[in-house]
């Protein structure tokens, strides 16, 4: 019987050792090596891969785009979802129908969302391309940097609003009736009632979602980016994760790509530590 718990833990530990710790360690290791392009071996180069990255104008450009992209996607999808959740919480008729209509996109894969974006922005018949054309905006997806970036943000927001909506709505519905009624008596104006009472009560959900959304914009949008650039990274905007893939897989720059992976690992670790501290604080107060 003494061996039973170890036996139970073994499969999980084995899988994470082989498919998590080994690759993660390998990434850290190879980020300090320069791989021979013909695969004949590698030489230790210390921090050179990192120095190269930070010195590269292209990497800095991608990093900047990622920051702006992440901020836009996070802000827009949180704001739209919050607005919709507050409204869905208000109405009595059709609340269930609205919930279904607003949440189903959760199940759409990012690259498929990107594919729908390709149709919407198609050069010859895309409804959005035509609409923008009416206003004199010649939208060229996959060629013009800003147009492609616009499409990436729009598709990523479309894909992310549902998750945020679900969390905000469940957060709103967990606010006790008594609090709502007291607020209603004290404060007639819906606007100030929202900012003074509802918004602070939603803050824990909001913080949690903030981190989730940043992680989403950084990593899960890979599929959106990959479909919208139509396989031609070229002059198109890309995120840091996409660059890891492009450099490592297409460019065969293993050391550089590993260094990028390690930078991203550090970034995620920092975000998670930040999140844990917030969660701790939340438990503390409630």
């Amino acid at each position, binding site marked *: 019987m003494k061996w*039973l*718990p170890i036996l139970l*833990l073994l*499969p*999980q*530990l084995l899988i*994470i050792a*082989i*498919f*998590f710790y080994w*690759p993660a360690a*390998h990434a850290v290791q190879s980020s300090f090596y320069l791989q021979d392009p013909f695969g004949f071996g590698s030489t230790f180069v210390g921090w050179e891969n990192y120095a190269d990255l930070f010195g590269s104008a292209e990497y800095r450009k991608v990093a900047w785009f990622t920051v702006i992209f992440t901020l836009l996607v996070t802000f827009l999808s949180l704001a739209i979802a919050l*607005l*919709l959740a507050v*409204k*869905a919480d*208000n*109405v009595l008729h*059709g609340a269930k129908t*609205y*919930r*279904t*209509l*607003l*949440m*189903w996109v*959760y*199940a*759409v*894969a*990012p*690259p*498929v969302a990107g*594919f*729908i974006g*390709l*149709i919407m922005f198609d050069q*010859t*018949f*895309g409804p959005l391309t035509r609409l923008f054309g009416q206003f004199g905006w010649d939208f060229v997806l996959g060629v013009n940097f800003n147009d492609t970036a616009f499409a990436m943000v729009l598709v990523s927001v*479309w894909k992310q*609003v549902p998750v945020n909506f*679900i*969390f905000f709505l*469940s957060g709103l519905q967990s606010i006790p009736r008594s609090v709502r009624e007291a607020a209603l008596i004290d404060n007639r104006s819906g606007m100030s009632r929202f900012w003074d009472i509802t918004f602070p009560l939603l803050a824990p959900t909001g913080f949690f979602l903030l981190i989730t959304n940043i*992680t989403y914009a950084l*990593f*899960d949008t890979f599929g959106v980016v*990959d*479909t919208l650039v*139509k396989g031609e990274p070229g002059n198109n905007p890309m995120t840091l*994760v996409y660059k890891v893939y492009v450099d*490592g*897989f297409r460019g065969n720059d*293993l050391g550089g*790509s*590993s260094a990028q*992976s390690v930078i991203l*690992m550090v970034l*995620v670790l920092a975000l998670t530590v930040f999140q844990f501290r917030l969660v701790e604080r939340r438990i503390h107060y409630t």
Partner: protein
Amino acid sequence: MTDTTFTTAPQATAPKRRIRWGRIADHAVLIAGSLFMLVPLLIVMQTTTVPDAEIIKHGPQLKIGNALPDNFNKAMFEASGFSGENTGVRMLLNSFILGIGFAVGKIALGMIAAYALVYFRLRFATAAFWLIFTTLLLPLEVRILPSYEVVQKLGMLNTYQGLIIPLVASATATFFFRQFFRSVPEELVEAARIDGAGPVRFFIDILVPLSRTMIAAMFIIMFVFGWNQYLWPTMITTDEGMYTLVRGIKQITQVLEGASLPEYGRSNLLALIAILPPVFIVIFFQSWFVKGLTESDK
């Protein structure tokens, strides 16, 4: 209940109009939001019902054509690659294998590991806990290349094991079940012990039935997550017979780019087929799904 309606009824006439305008505004916002979500899907749906030449000429229209059976045949039974293996049927099958295999693997591993962590006193329990939960910190995307090399070394490229197992190497389900097991009342464990149930009996006869709703919720979330995987399948499966629908989407878009008469009807229908199963599951099991999703953050 009757009291409140009684007292509010007489004074309801004056503020009624104001409230109603507010309600209309609420509905307007919700309808706009629903349209924002729904219209792109409707457009894709419409394009699957008309011949390709018509889409290119007119774009999406407000009519339903009769080319759907034709597009369906092409999408499901005609391969789009060179090998002739990645028909829609094949990709659909692979998607189901990935979705179900991932969900089952994750739940099974997670449950037994969580069981060991919660109900046994282990000397190295804390170490095991941290080893397992560190995996929550780093998504597969950041260690994608070395993971690929490991799978390559193990000779698991273009296999279902290579596709599924590395994705299972994270602790979301373990974490979730650990939280749930800890909320199971202590008395139940005691009672089982008094009745002479061993650890295995306790797990199978008490813990598993208790966790039914949780298992269902996890299954839905994990199935959708597995079905929607893109980056990992893109790297691991180069063999067209191993493509999932979501992984195949890239090739579908490349067919659109290259051809003289792009087959929009067929490609859009494949995209639609990639969307529908997870969407139906999420809609039909909505309450479980929402519960599982929102409770996993606690």
